[in-house]
C-alpha cells in the first residue's frame, strides 16, 4: 500500500448539484403526497427516499469513488434488515383465523371482545352497511381487487388467475347476488383465501360494497340463503350467523385480558 495514494475530492460544483437534486426530490415528494395513489403512496415515497439516500451515499459519503468493500459492508446491513422484515411480514400479515369452540362466540360478545351485531337483516343493503363495507373492503380486499374494484390492486401482479374485476357484470364463477359474494367470502375462490374470520356483518357489508362497483344484481332467492345456511326470517340470520373463528390479534387480545383478570 502506497503512502502516495490519491484521494478523491468531490468538486464543489458536483456537491452543489447533488444538493440541488436532493432539494428538488424533497419538493417532488411533498408535492406528490397531495395525490392519493392508495397503497402505492408508500412505494412512491420509498422510491424517492431510496434515490435520495443513494445520492448521499454515493457522492457525499464517497462510496462511488471508494473501495468497493466499504459499499459491501454498508449494503450488508440492509440485506439483514430485508431478511428481518420479510420473515416478520410472512408471519404477521398472513396469520390465519383462530377456530372457536362451541359457546366461545357468545363468550366473546359477552366480554365485549366481539361487537354485538348492529344491523338487523344485514343482507338488505343500506347506506350505513355500504359505508362499513367500504372500510372492510379497503382493509381486506383492495390490495388485490384494487381501490376501484378493477382487480388491479398492487398484489394482483403475482396472482393467476387475476382477481375479479367488479365493474364487469358477467361471468362471475359463483354469481354476483349478495348471498353469492357472502359465500365466496366465507369459502374463498381460486387464489383468494377464505375470509371466514370476518364477522357475518362485515361480510354482508363488504358484499354490498362490492356490488356498488357494477350494475344492480338480482335479489337472492330462499334457496340462495339456504346455501349459506342463513335464515332470512331471523333478524341476524339465525344460528349459523355466529362467529366460528376470530382473527389472531383478537385472540391475542383475549389471552392478555384473561391473564390480567387472573392477576
Amino acid at each position, binding site marked *: *500500500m*502506497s*503512502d*502516495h*495514494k*490519491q*484521494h*478523491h*475530492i*468531490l*468538486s*464543489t*460544483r*458536483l*456537491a*452543489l448539484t*447533488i*444538493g440541488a437534486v*436532493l*432539494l428538488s426530490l*424533497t419538493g417532488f*415528494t*411533498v408535492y406528490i*403526497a397531495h395525490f392519493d395513489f392508495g397503497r402505492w*403512496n*408508500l412505494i412512491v*415515497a*420509498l422510491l*424517492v*427516499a431510496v434515490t*435520495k*439516500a443513494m445520492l*448521499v*451515499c454515493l*457522492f*457525499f*459519503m464517497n462510496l462511488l469513488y*471508494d*473501495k468497493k*468493500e*466499504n459499499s459491501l*459492508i*454498508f449494503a*450488508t*446491513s*440492509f440485506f*439483514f*434488515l430485508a431478511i*428481518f*422484515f420479510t420473515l*416478520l*411480514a410472512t408471519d*404477521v*400479515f398472513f396469520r390465519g383465523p383462530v377456530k372457536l369452540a362451541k359457546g366461545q362466540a357468545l363468550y366473546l360478545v359477552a366480554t365485549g371482545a366481539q361487537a354485538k351485531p348492529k344491523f338487523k337483516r344485514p343482507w338488505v343493503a343500506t347506506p350505513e352497511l355500504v359505508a362499513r363495507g367500504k*372500510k372492510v373492503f*379497503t*382493509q381486506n380486499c383492495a390490495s388485490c381487487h384494487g381501490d376501484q374494484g378493477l382487480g388491479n390492486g398492487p398484489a394482483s401482479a403475482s396472482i393467476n388467475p387475476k382477481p375479479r374485476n367488479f365493474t364487469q357484470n358477467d361471468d362471475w364463477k359463483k354469481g354476483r347476488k349478495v348471498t353469492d359474494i357472502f359465500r365466496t367470502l366465507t369459502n374463498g375462490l381460486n387464489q383468494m383465501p377464505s375470509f371466514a374470520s370476518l364477522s357475518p356483518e362485515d361480510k354482508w357489508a363488504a358484499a354490498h360494497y362490492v356490488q356498488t362497483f357494477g350494475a344492480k344484481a338480482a335479489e337472492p332467492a330462499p334457496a340462495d340463503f339456504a346455501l349459506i345456511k342463513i335464515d332470512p326470517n331471523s333478524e341476524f340470520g339465525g344460528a349459523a350467523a355466529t362467529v366460528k373463528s376470530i382473527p389472531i*390479534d383478537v385472540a391475542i387480545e383475549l389471552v392478555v385480558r384473561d391473564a390480567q383478570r387472573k392477576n
Partner: protein
Amino acid sequence: MSQTVVSTDPGVRHHAHHFDSAEHEFDSAKQGMWLFLVTEVLMIGAIFVAFMTFRGLYLEDFQAAHKLLSVPLGATNTVILITSSVTMVLGVTSAQRKQKGLTVLMLFLTFLLACGFLIVKYIEYTGKFHHGIMPAGLYTGVNEFAASSDAFKLFFSFYFVMTGIHAAHVVIGMGLILWIMRRAARGEFTGGYYTPVELVGFYWHFVDLVWIFLFPMLYLIG
C-alpha cells in the same frame, strides 16, 4: 465533471506504529466508521421494521394520526438537513484541499443549520405536548383526539421515539462538529491528514439519511 485530487502527505502527522502507513491508518479508520454505521442502520432499521409492521396492521389509525403532524415544519427540517449535508461535504473537501479558513467556515455553517433543525423540532414537540399528544402511555389528548384508539396513540410513540433518537444523533453530531472545528482552526488538518473531518462527515450524512426516510414515512404517508 471536474475532479481534483490531492496526495496525502504523511509528513505532518505520523501514523500509529501498528499501521503500515498513513494511508493504511486512514483506510482502517474509515472502515471502522462504516462498521459503526452498520450498527446504526440495524438499530434504527429495527424500529422502522416495527413501524412498518404496525402500520400494516393498523393502517387507518396510522393514516389518521399522521395528519396531526405539520408537513411544512417537517419539510423545512428536511431542507435544513440537506443543506447542512452540502456544507459538511464542502467542509471535508476544503480540508482535503488544506484550506483552513474555508473548512472552519463550512463546519460552522453546518453547526448553525443543526441549531436551526433543533429549533424547528422544539417548536414541533412543544406544539404536540400542548395538545396532550404524547407517546402512548402518556397520551392525554385534551381535545377531539381524547377518544383515540390505542393504535392512534401508538403512532405517536413511534413518532417521538424515532424523531427523539434522531434528535439525539443531531446533538451528538453538533458536539463532534464543534470538536473538529476547533482542531481545524488550530491548523491540525492542513498537512494532508483530515481523517476526523471525513468521519464526522460520514456521521452527519448518516443523520441526514435517517431523516430522509423519517420525513416521508411519518409526515407524508403515515
